[in-house]
């Protein structure tokens, strides 16, 4: 059975009038998408996510290579599968002066979809009671939901959402997250492009990371999180500065965390007893110790080479990190090279 989404050597170069070409996608090979799963498509701004999606939808022609959806070449024969694909590219796009129902009805008419489907999708996105309001009067969150309703009208097997959480407030993001999970639970394959890693982490089962138009890594969420770097433990102790000195002298890396009395120590959780022993020998007793959770953000920053440098040691006598230091310490990632990839059956890289 063909993969839902597949690209082979996909390359897209935008020619500019002043002559300098911009390579948006550079030889991208992807094989992804499974029914009932949400696949995150991640990359920094300008990494080629939207260009790839546009190639998949047949909106732009690749300079070379192939983009396929449900086994059909998107450039030549996307029309054969367009009825199985719902998509929102970048912003929700509808006719601003038309009501939600009018917008959906025009789309439904194009494909001969019965009007009863409009009621169904409006219910799904919870806009049934605002269906007569014009699109332009909607909040951004409502616009996003209406655009999803438009994509769902076809009852697609694959839903492609490009930056669905862009511009949404926290409540809107939470609604979007629930909506995406609901849709996936109906057996749909969903591709969500985003650079909001926390959101992706909460909603996706699988993740693909691209950067500068190239594939960096693809696999399950746990597999990708494995690239977050060396394990860390968080030590809670009353005299943080003195404890840090003891830990550094014992040959471990330790940095202050934004929380008072917390240190981030570069050590495997299995070896954390070493830390407690050294501290105890120095007459210091910790009030807490826990493993730091590996996050998708850390993995992403490591994999895309955008990890910020670790903060330097605080000046002597500093009682607590300043806000800036804290912010850095909070976002700090291990500088050690990523560990070997944990085993992940069926997860290509």
């Amino acid at each position, binding site marked *: 059975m063909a993969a839902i989404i597949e690209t082979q050597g996909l390359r897209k170069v935008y020619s500019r009038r002043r002559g300098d070409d911009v390579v948006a996608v550079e030889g991208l090979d992807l094989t992804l998408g499974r029914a009932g799963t949400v696949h995150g498509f991640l990359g920094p701004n300008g990494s080629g996510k939207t260009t790839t999606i546009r190639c998949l939808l047949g909106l732009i022609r690749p300079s070379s290579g192939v983009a396929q959806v449900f086994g059909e070449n998107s450039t030549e024969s996307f*029309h054969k599968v367009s009825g199985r694909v719902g998509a929102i590219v970048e912003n929700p796009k509808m006719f601003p002066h038309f009501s939600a129902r009018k917008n959906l009805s025009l789309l439904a*008419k*194009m*494909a*001969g979809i019965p009007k009863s489907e409009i009621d169904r999708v409006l219910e799904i996105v919870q806009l049934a009671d605002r269906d007569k309001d014009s699109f332009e009067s909607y909040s951004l969150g409502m616009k996003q939901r209406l655009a999803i309703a*438009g994509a769902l009208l076809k009852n697609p097997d694959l839903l492609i959402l490009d930056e669905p959480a862009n511009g949404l407030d926290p409540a809107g993001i939470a609604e979007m997250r629930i909506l995406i999970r609901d849709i996936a639970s109906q057996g749909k394959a969903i591709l969500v492009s985003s650079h909001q890693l926390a959101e992706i982490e909460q909603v996706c089962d699988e993740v693909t990371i691209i950067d500068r138009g190239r594939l960096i890594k693809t696999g399950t969420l746990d597999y990708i999180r494995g690239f977050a770097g060396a394990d860390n433990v968080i030590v809670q102790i009353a005299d943080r500065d003195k404890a840090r000195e003891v830990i550094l002298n014992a040959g471990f890396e330790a940095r202050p965390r934004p929380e008072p009395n917390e240190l981030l120590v570069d050590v495997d959780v299995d070896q954390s007893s070493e830390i407690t022993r050294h501290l105890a020998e120095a007459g210091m007793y910790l009030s807490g110790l826990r493993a730091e959770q590996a996050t998708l953000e850390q993995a992403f920053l490591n994999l895309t080479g955008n990890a910020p440098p670790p903060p330097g040691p605080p000046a002597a006598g500093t009682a607590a990190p300043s806000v800036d230091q804290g912010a850095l310490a909070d976002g700090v990632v291990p500088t050690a090279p990523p560990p070997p990839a944990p085993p992940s059956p069926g997860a290509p890289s």
Partner: protein
Amino acid sequence: MMNLLLAEGSRLWARRMTRYFPLILAALMLAGIVIAYFVITNNDDSVDFVNDIGGGVDARSMLGPITVLLPIMAFVIGASYVGADIKTGMLEQLLTWEPRRLRLLSARAIACLVSATIIAGLLALFFVALAYGLSSAAGTVDGATGEFWGNVAKLVLRTGVAAGLFCAFGLGITVMVNSSMGSIVAFVIYWFVVENLITAFLSKVAVYLPIQNANAFASGEDVERLEGSIFGGGDVDFIVSHSYITAGLILAGWTLAAVLGAAFIFNRRDIA
């Protein structure tokens, strides 16, 4: 294809431009006729429906006052129809529903052609009705025979078709230049400046240009070519170049060329 045609037709008719522009023109016509009525009655004058307004039994000058307005209206409706998609980015959305671009463009061109023909035909009829009312109130409608009304009907139909062709023409030009404002401005400049210049300097070429042929087709008059130079002195004469039927075909040719050009470009354009 029928679903697509119906959807495109519905969307075109749902647009404010499609509904309000003709209504504004209708209001202007009404205002013009009311003003004409007061001018005529205040001057103790009268108007002859068949001879003054119609220009005789062939009714060729019946729609003279609105000949310029209807094609421009049609062009603007066609241009803004696709221009709205470009502006709102809706084209992306539509292409995920109908990725076959030639089908989409064809459906739109047909929707434009049919819709503008109906709209312009109705406006032309409205103007005839107003002119008839004016003549009844401030003059005479004597001489409006069956032959005269038959000619009026043909005139209205041809005017509608010419507007329909201009609507599709506007759509084609806008798709090519990818901007409704750009195409409308270029069209108005062409109408009032470029084609007049070409007519003045290259009269043999001018008889194949769209505006001249549209006017001839709508009014049912032959297209005439200027013989001799208006700048060089000497005799100047007008010689019949071709009939209004040929003029209609030439106009249709221009429209087809614009739509084909649009199809060629649109089919290759990145929608980003």
